[in-house]
């Protein structure tokens, strides 16, 4: 099934925005009604294309936030001085059209048969594809143990906060807040470094599977630390979002 989906033609099509949900002050989830959606895998993304009246075109990629089987949704962070993200977070409304193509990707995906234990490492909006993986795991009844390390600037920047406060059985969520912590905070309060990862990561001997997603600098630091601690490089999957305001 997944194999056939990978070999189909990738075409641009027009979807309708069915809902816009506020996640944080600068983050929105757009739920989409896509007429010819072939289904997707957890971890995949789609490409968006915007066209203005003069024919100017802007394209961007966004990870799919929903699990296979759920309505297609993307989560977008408004970037200061961004050309596309402010349009998606502030202007777009339910009923608007949005041109997209997808799903895209086959490297940064997870299926229950891929096993675990799973180590998910999110830097800022890098949590989006990892949340799709978590939801897919729950919907399929997988019992693979999961630890999610989620790095954010402040508690107010945590996306899917309520959902992550009630994780599914077998899922452990560990936050680190790098810029500001609420009074009484007893959790991690710094950027992910080797020492922090040593406390949080599954031991390499457990043959874990790691997915690292977020700003490029976060992904480089974390993936290198995991490999240095004994994770085989082929068991550390990475997706770089470029330099964003994530962490």
């Amino acid at each position: 099934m997944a194999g056939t989906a990978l070999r189909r033609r990738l075409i641009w099509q027009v979807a309708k925005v069915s809902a816009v949900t506020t996640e944080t002050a600068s983050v929105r989830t757009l739920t989409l009604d896509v007429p010819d959606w072939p289904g997707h895998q957890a971890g995949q993304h789609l490409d968006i294309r915007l066209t203005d009246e003069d024919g100017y075109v802007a394209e961007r990629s966004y990870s799919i936030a929903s699990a296979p089987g759920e309505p297609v949704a993307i989560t977008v962070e408004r970037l200061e001085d961004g050309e596309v993200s402010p349009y998606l977070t502030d202007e777009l409304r339910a009923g608007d059209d949005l041109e997209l193509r997808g799903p895209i990707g086959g490297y940064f995906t997870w299926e229950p048969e891929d096993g675990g234990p799973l180590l998910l490492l999110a830097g800022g909006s890098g949590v989006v594809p990892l949340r799709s993986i978590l939801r897919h795991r729950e919907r399929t009844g997988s019992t693979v143990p999961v630890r999610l390390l989620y790095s954010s600037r402040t508690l107010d920047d945590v996306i899917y906060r309520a959902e992550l406060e009630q994780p599914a059985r077998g899922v452990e969520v560990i936050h680190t807040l790098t810029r500001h912590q609420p009074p009484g905070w007893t959790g991690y309060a710094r950027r992910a470094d080797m020492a922090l990862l040593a406390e949080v990561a599954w031991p390499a001997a457990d043959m874990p599977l790691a997915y690292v997603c977020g700003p490029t600098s976060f992904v480089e630091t974390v993936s290198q630390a995991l490999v240095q601690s004994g994770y085989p490089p082929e068991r550390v999957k990475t997706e770089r979002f470029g330099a964003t305001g994530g962490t």
Partner: protein
Amino acid sequence: MSPVSRGFHRRRQDPAQTAGRVPPGQYVTKDFPVLSAGPTPHTALDGWSFSVGRGGQQKTWSWAEFRALPSEDITVDIHCVTKWSKLDTVWQGVSVDTLLDLAGHDGPFAMAHCDGGYTTNVPVADLTGGQAWVAYAYGGQPLEPEHGGPARLLVPHLYFWKSAKWVRSLELRDTNDPGFWENYGYHIYGDPWREQRYAGD
């Protein structure tokens, strides 16, 4: 054409402020986008040199020697082939006229070679007569690595891919051989006022 996205528009500019200064197809930006085809080189000044010449006959300056050359303050508009233009950018640099005079060479063509392997070609006639510099400062500060520091070529009358970052030499040649982007179909000359973005334009 794809369906128009309701309410989407590219960054707007004030036409009154920019009349006559913006080549066709460009929009004015206030920020300074960083575009690169590779990682930012970080070259230590004590290892830096700049050369002009051909074959075995090169004139080379160390950083200290280069900074001792007469330099100028330059205020120019710059135009990137990816459609952004930035007006009134302020630089400090050594005129290529000065460098060519001291090297005792002339054209007809030059290939700029840069740390990281980037190249671009420019006719010597477009590098002389006060049209080009090797710039080491931007906005009153030493040029940052992400914008081409320690020094970059500055040829503002052509599209900005010709203003090669991390420049280390101007190799003089008899033929107008294409550089990195020119090889892939970008225009061999690159005049923004004639919108010469691609070969054949």
